[in-house]
């Protein structure tokens, strides 16, 4: 009998083009996603070496990192951003790579549009010059972020020289309580294993609570695998996956679709497959999460308090906590729910899909953003998400409550456009990184789920979304 293999091992084995003992393998890349931020130098390198894009048909480009989220029809005044857009447009025109530019109806954050267009499929290898490429692993694909030199490598060869990773199974069993979302699961996991807990590993998420998640929830979890140090995170494809794939523009159709599903069914890890490590969590024990520090592992329950640095046993952790609290201007012992906010950002490749917006809108409906708030932004992950939300009237729900409704892009998750968190201000954000200066130099970021961000916008401070007044149903 063949040895039991994990999902990762199956995809890896199916993609080895060449290998020699003691050397990294040459693996094939099925889909290459590029954007304006990390590709110009790769194209320049390719040109300098007189090399060609090997498979423009497997390469997809989009403008997302630096695009404005309002007044997109006006000229771009940021000359460096304009340089990025022009370079991407020219590089794609010269090489035949399909580009979704900022005026395309399909434009959006690269990790939102790949799945929604069906470019992302189970069993594929997918790379992009962006660390949140781990998102696509939600489909049972092997997807990871790469540097610009590797972008150039893939453009030229459609392959990468890769070392095999170790595997870490993260099981979340039991049922998620009301108000506890995929975002809370992944934040709790990072809090448990740490921001370097997955280094050198590919994570596979399993267990009842993961199986019960929609594709969008699974994407939220896989998205933040990199925040635990893992380049990739995966969920085995199942009926939820196959239903999501059905009818997507770039996905298999008709008879091919049935054959594809049959292939995809065989991807799941075999019973008895061995992982290098395993971690288990119980969903019932997870509360809505709020980060208090300057990395996603510095996280606690919404019912908790800002920790005393002295409570960390390790000297390194103590020092890091002290520094983080200084940057965040937080006093140890402060109740999380007493932390006042200046801004709220609902968006990013972590949480800007239609289900995120629906869930946030349900919290917001008929209410008003707190007067103390300077700004509350909703930035849909893609123009398709935006159009769908508008069809459902969600934009009106948000704007009636006092939120701004913007065009699609990375926006205030990274602050490469005008959407920047000012220095000294505090933001509840549905994004993925609370690093120093991430949303803007001197800005203070707290990571939360969309429903937690929505409720915080109304209250002006963090609140427990599970409290009855917020009326969350079982869904998210």
């Amino acid at each position: 009998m063949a040895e039991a293999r994990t999902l990762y091992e199956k995809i890896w084995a199916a993609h080895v083009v060449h290998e020699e003992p003691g050397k990294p393998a040459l693996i094939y890349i099925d889909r290459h996603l590029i954007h304006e931020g990390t590709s110009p130098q790769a194209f320049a390198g390719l040109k300098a070496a007189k090399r060609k894009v090997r498979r423009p048909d497997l390469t997809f480009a989009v403008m997302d990192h630096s695009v404005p989220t309002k007044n997109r029809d006006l000229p771009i005044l940021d000359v460096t951003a304009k340089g990025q857009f022009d370079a991407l447009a020219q590089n794609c025109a010269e090489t035949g790579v399909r580009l979704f530019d900022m005026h395309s109806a399909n434009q959006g954050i690269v990790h939102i549009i790949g799945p929604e267009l069906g470019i992302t499929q189970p069993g594929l290898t997918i790379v992009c010059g962006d660390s949140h490429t781990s998102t696509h692993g939600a489909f049972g694909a092997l997807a990871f972020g790469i540097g610009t030199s590797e972008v150039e490598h893939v453009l030229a060869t459609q392959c990468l020289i890769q070392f095999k990773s170790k595997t870490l199974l993260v099981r979340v069993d039991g049922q998620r309580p009301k108000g506890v979302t995929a975002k809370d699961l992944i934040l709790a996991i990072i809090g448990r294993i740490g921001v370097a807990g997955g280094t050198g590993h590919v994570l596979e998420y399993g267990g009842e609570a993961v199986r019960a998640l929609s594709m969008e929830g699974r994407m939220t979890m896989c998205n933040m695998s990199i925040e635990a140090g893992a380049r990739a995170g995966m969920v085995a494809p199942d009926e939820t996956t196959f239903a999501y794939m059905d009818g997507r523009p770039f996905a298999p159709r008709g008879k091919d679709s049935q054959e594809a599903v049959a292939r995809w069914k065989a991807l799941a890890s075999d019973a008895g497959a061995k992982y290098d490590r395993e971690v288990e969590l119980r969903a019932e024990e997870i509360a809505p999460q709020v980060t208090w520090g300057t990395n996603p592992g510095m996280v606690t329950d919404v019912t908790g308090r800002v920790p005393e640095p002295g409570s960390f046993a390790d000297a390194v952790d103590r020092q890091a906590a002290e520094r983080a609290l200084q940057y965040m201007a937080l006093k140890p012992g402060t109740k999380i729910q007493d932390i006042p906010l200046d801004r709220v950002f609902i968006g990013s490749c972590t949480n800007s899909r239609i289900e995120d917006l629906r869930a946030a809108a349900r919290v917001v409906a008929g209410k008003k953003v707190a007067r103390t708030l300077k700004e509350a932004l909703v930035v849909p992950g893609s123009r398709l998400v935006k159009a769908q939300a508008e069809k459902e009237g969600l934009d009106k729900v948000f704007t009636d409550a006092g939120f701004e409704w913007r065009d699609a892009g990375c926006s205030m998750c990274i602050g490469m456009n005008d959407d920047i968190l000012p220095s000294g201000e505090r933001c509840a954000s549905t994004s993925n990184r609370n690093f120093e200066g991430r949303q803007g130099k001197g800005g203070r970021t707290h990571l939360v789920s969309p429903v937690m961000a929505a409720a915080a916008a109304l209250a002006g401070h963090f609140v427990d979304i599970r409290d009855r007044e917020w009326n969350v149903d079982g869904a998210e």
Partner: protein
Amino acid sequence: MIQPFSQHTGLVAPLDRVNVDTDQMTPKQFCKLLTREGYGKFLFFDWRYLDGEKPNPDFVLNFPRYRGASVLLGRANLGCGSSREHAAWAVLDYGFRVVIAPSFADIFYNNCFKNGVLPVQLKDAEVDELFRRTEATEGYSLSVDLEQQTVRDDSGLLCRFEIDPFRKYALQKGLDEIGLSLEHEAKIAAYEKQRAPAAPLYDPARVDVKYS
């Protein structure tokens, strides 16, 4: 083309913080340039400058004694976060040829090799000792030998480090990895032919998605 690496001796600068992310190494506003060169002035920008111009006297790289440092000594999980290679470009352009830490984030570790920067992973206790010596002795420098896989100072300290043989070879030669992969053209083409049915790509005439 990357600069081959064999041996390097240089002044050590200590960055005593864990989980230093690549957003700090090259903040976002400098990730809009179209070149690979000239990022040294942006390295640790928000820590290095007050109001974006005046050097911050409290930041270690601004201490006169560490001016001209070419070995960066760091703490665990160095280079976590964003995949931006701009971080490695900034480290190199600033003048660092070697980065030493007890552990590195995967993508940054990889990006260092692609740019001729040697990331050296040492044991926690060894890194602690290097921090002590760097801070105690002005002008403290280290010699790093890639062939021997050693780090030495002038007063008898000797640490050995592990490195994958392929990475070592590639760095020693300043290898063009793309050229290396292209030597397997026939295999790549054969793979594509065999693989095609398992990875079909449907080209929609009209891209339109429905939501349920």
